[in-house]
C-alpha cells in the first residue's frame, strides 16, 4: 500500500504528473470572480466562503480524470487487480494520493485567496477546517466516479455529470461551515455533519469503487 502511495506521489511530482494544475486552476478561478461580480469589497467578503469552496470543488473534479485513466491505459490496473493488494485498498490509496496532491494544496492555499476576496477575519479558521475535513470526501467520491467511467471513451464530461450531484451534501455542509464562520457565528454543527459525511465516504466508498472497477475490468 505504501509502495503504491509512494509511486503515485512520485509520478505526480515528476514532469507531466499534473501536480499543481488543480492549484493553478483554483487560483485562476478565484481571481476571475472579482472580474465577473465587480470589485466591491463587501460583496466579495459575502461571497468569499462560497466561491472558495466551489473553486476547490471544481479543482478537485478536474484532476479526477487522471486518477485511474492513466493506469487503465497502460495496463497497471489489470496487474494491480491480480496483485495481493485488494482493489478496495488500492482505490483508497489512490484517493488518498489524489487528496495529497490536489486537496491538501487547495486547503493550504485557501487562506491566501481568502485575503484577496476580503474574507472576514473570523472566517479563516473555519474555512481551513471545513476544507481540510471536506476535501478528502471529494477525493473518495471522485474515485468512485473515476471507476465508473474509466472504461468509457471520452468519459470526462460524463464523470462530471455523475460526480457533481454526489458532491452536493459535502458542498452544502462545507460551505455552510465557512460561511457561518465568516459571519462570526458558531459553525460547529455543520462542521460535525461534514465530518460525518467525510468519514462515512472514506469508509464506504472504496467498496463501491472497487465493485465498479471489477465490473469495468472484466
Amino acid at each position: 500500500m505504501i509502495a503504491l502511495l509512494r509511486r503515485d506521489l512520485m509520478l505526480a511530482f515528476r514532469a507531466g504528473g499534473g501536480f499543481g494544475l488543480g492549484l493553478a486552476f483554483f487560483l485562476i478561478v478565484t481571481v476571475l470572480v472579482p472580474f465577473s461580480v465587480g470589485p466591491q469589497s463587501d460583496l466579495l467578503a459575502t461571497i468569499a466562503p462560497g466561491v472558495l469552496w466551489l473553486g476547490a470543488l471544481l479543482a478537485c473534479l478536474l484532476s479526477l480524470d487522471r486518477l485511474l485513466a492513466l493506469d487503465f491505459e497502460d495496463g497497471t490496473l489489470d496487474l494491480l487487480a491480480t496483485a495481493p493488494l485488494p482493489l478496495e485498498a488500492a482505490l483508497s490509496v489512490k484517493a488518498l494520493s489524489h487528496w495529497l496532491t490536489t486537496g491538501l494544496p487547495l486547503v493550504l492555499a485557501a487562506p491566501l485567496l481568502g485575503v484577496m476576496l476580503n474574507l472576514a477575519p473570523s472566517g479563516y479558521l473555519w474555512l481551513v477546517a471545513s476544507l481540510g475535513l471536506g476535501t478528502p470526501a471529494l477525493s473518495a467520491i471522485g474515485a468512485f466516479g473515476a471507476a465508473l467511467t474509466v472504461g468509457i471513451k471520452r468519459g470526462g464530461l460524463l464523470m462530471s455529470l455523475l460526480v457533481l450531484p454526489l458532491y452536493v451534501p459535502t458542498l452544502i455542509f462545507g460551505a455552510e461551515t465557512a460561511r457561518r464562520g465568516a459571519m462570526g457565528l458558531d459553525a460547529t454543527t455543520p462542521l460535525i455533519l461534514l465530518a460525518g459525511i467525510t468519514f462515512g465516504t472514506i469508509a464506504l466508498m472504496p467498496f463501491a469503487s472497487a465493485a465498479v472497477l471489477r465490473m469495468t475490468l472484466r
Partner: protein
Amino acid sequence: MSLWEYANPVKFLGLSARVQPFVWGGAGLCLAVGLLWGFFATPDDYRQGSTVKIIYLHVPAALMAINAWFMMLVASLIWLIRRHHVSALAAKAAAPVGILMTVIALITGAIWGQPMWGTWWAWDPRLTSFLILFLFYLGYIALWEAVEDPDTAADLTAVLCLVGSVFAVLSRYAVKFWNQGLHQGTSVPLATGGRTVSDVFFYPLLISMIGFGLLFLALVLYRTGTEIRLRRARALLARSERGA
C-alpha cells in the same frame, strides 16, 4: 409457480401484453375523472383562488418522481442480487419516465409559485431537492447511454442508483439544513401535502394520484417491453451474423 417466473423476458412480455390494456384504461379513467373533477367541480380556494387547481397535476407528478427512483432502486437491487434481465431493463425504462415526472413537478410548481409567492423559483428545500433529483436522473440516464455492453451498463447503473440513493437522501437533509440555516423564516408556504387539504380537494387529488400511478406503471410496462424487444433484436442479429 412463483413471481420470479415473470423474470423471463418472454413470460414478462406475455403478462405485460395482457395487463397493459387494463392499466392504460385505468390510468385514462382515473386521470379523466380526477382532473375534470378537480378542475371544474371543486370550489376555488379562498386564499389561493383557482391557481390551487394545479395541485392535481403537481402533487401526483412529484409523488411519482420519487416513487420512480425508488422503483429503480428496487429493480437495481434485484438485478445485482438475482441477475434478472427484465429487472435491469425495467430500471432503465423507468428512468426517462421518472425524469419527466420530475420536470412536470418542477414546471407546475413554478407556474403555481409565480402567482402565489411572486416568484418562479425559490431555493426552498423542497424545490432544491427536486432539482437535485433531476440531476441524479440525468446522470443515471447518461451512464446507461455511455456504456456499450448491456450487462456492464446494467451493473454500473445499478451501483450508481444505490450510491445515488444514499447521496440523494443525504442531499435532502443537507438542503433542509442549509436553507433553515441562514434564510430564517422564509415566507414561502410549503407545497401542501395531501394531509393538510380539505376533503373537497382531497378526493379528486387522490383519484388523480392513482391515475398518475397507473400511468407510470403503463409507461414502464410499455417501455420495458420495448427494451426487451430491442435486446432480442440485438441477440437475433448477433446470432444470424455468426451463423452466416
